[in-house]
């Protein structure tokens, strides 16, 4: 079995989840509470990566991340390195690809917070930002847990986009789902099944962890 690919997968899923939890929270907050023109357009934009087939996202990502593309060029200028075919590159791809799964459950949870708690926080002198961190977040943990589970599992299974943006360089960008793909393509169904099976304990362990964290914080 391809342990290296499993390791890359796990690393990718964890990094994606952590980064997205931090990134998506403010977006979800804006969508839940702010009022500004073009808000639904922003929301549609945030959700778009999900509606498009992975091949299309991969296609556009390659274009912007290539050394000639906007982001790729900027990155090369900054660091001298390339984004495509690196772990960083697939991480960015995986983050963009999973944004909607992080934003949507968080937005739902944030918008359900009892207004009276927010009013009490304001009266107690908390800025909107402090209220967000000290009241909204701790009272939305079940929604955040849902987001984390979706993002983590989705980045485990992500494959089309990653293959396109990452190539499949062992130890760097070759994730388990690509290994499965190669096994299926070579009609090696047993190997494919083996790797797929190994996903069960991983997702199970992650679920248990998240549920545990979520329950510990129940009021």
């Amino acid at each position, binding site marked *: 079995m391809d342990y290296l690919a499993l390791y890359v997968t796990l690393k990718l899923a964890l990094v994606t989840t952590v980064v997205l939890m931090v990134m998506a929270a403010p977006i979800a907050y804006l969508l839940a509470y702010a009022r500004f023109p073009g808000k639904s357009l922003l929301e549609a934009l945030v959700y778009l990566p999900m509606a498009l087939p992975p091949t299309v996202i991969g296609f556009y990502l390659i274009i912007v991340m290539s050394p*000639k593309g906007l982001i790729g060029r900027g990155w090369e200028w900054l660091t001298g390195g390339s984004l495509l075919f690196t772990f960083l590159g697939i991480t960015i791809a995986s983050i963009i690809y999973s944004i909607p799964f992080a934003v949507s459950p968080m937005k739902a949870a944030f918008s359900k917070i009892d207004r009276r708690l927010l009013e009490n926080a304001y009266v107690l002198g908390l800025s909107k930002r402090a209220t967000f961190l000290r009241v909204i977040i701790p009272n939305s943990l079940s929604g955040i847990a849902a987001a984390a589970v979706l993002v983590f599992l989705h980045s485990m299974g992500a494959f089309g986009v990653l293959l396109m943006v990452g190539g499949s*360089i062992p130890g760097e960008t070759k994730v388990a789902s690509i290994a499965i793909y190669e096994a299926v393509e070579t009609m090696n169904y047993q190997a494919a099944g083996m790797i797929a099976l190994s996903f069960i304990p991983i997702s199970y362990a992650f679920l248990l962890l998240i549920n545990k964290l979520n329950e510990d914080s129940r009021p």
Partner: protein
Amino acid sequence: EKISVAVAANFISAFKEIAADFEAQSGVKVEATFSSTGNFYNQIKNGAPYDMFLSADEQRPDLLQKEGWTEGTFIYARGQAILWSANPDFCKAATWQDALKNNQIKKIAIANPVTAPYGAAAKAALQKAGLWDALQSKVVNAQDIAQSFQYATTFAVDAGFCALSATTSPQGKSGCFYSVPEAPAIVQAACVAKNAKNKKGAELLAAFLSSKYAVKIKAKYGYR
């Protein structure tokens, strides 16, 4: 010392064996990436750092040559479409055309002729046999040739146009097949990047692909 090679997905099995032999003989490490030809073409156009590209068709390498990515293309394999079924009774008819005319046959898989060279070859064969229009309602499009074979092995379809290489796998041996000489050979071309990081290694591999060792492995997987 390593080279990175983009390999069309239908050539995975053969390539893995060839690469192993090559590594042993030359000491050059081969890092292979497998995906669809269209995807590779797009990646390369956007600056993917492959030293070498083994396509599933001739068209993409030619385009890359026109665009100046490579200085020359060469043919590394010729594949042949076959008609494969998991049901041994299927092959009792005299010809593949007769087998397909049987009313018992409800679904036939071909790779998507629009995107996959094997699909285009299968379509050409069906057209030549005058069956294409008649069988329209029975034809199911698979993403690529491997998937067409998957349909056939899982009984999702009664028969599928596959690559000859499929018959070498354990599943392939459990069924039966017709060769389809009416299908034009699938010519797979390759090319070495002009600005390859390890051009010498890539040219070594290019030469190795027509060596007697490689030819033997290719034959084993149904390529000429």
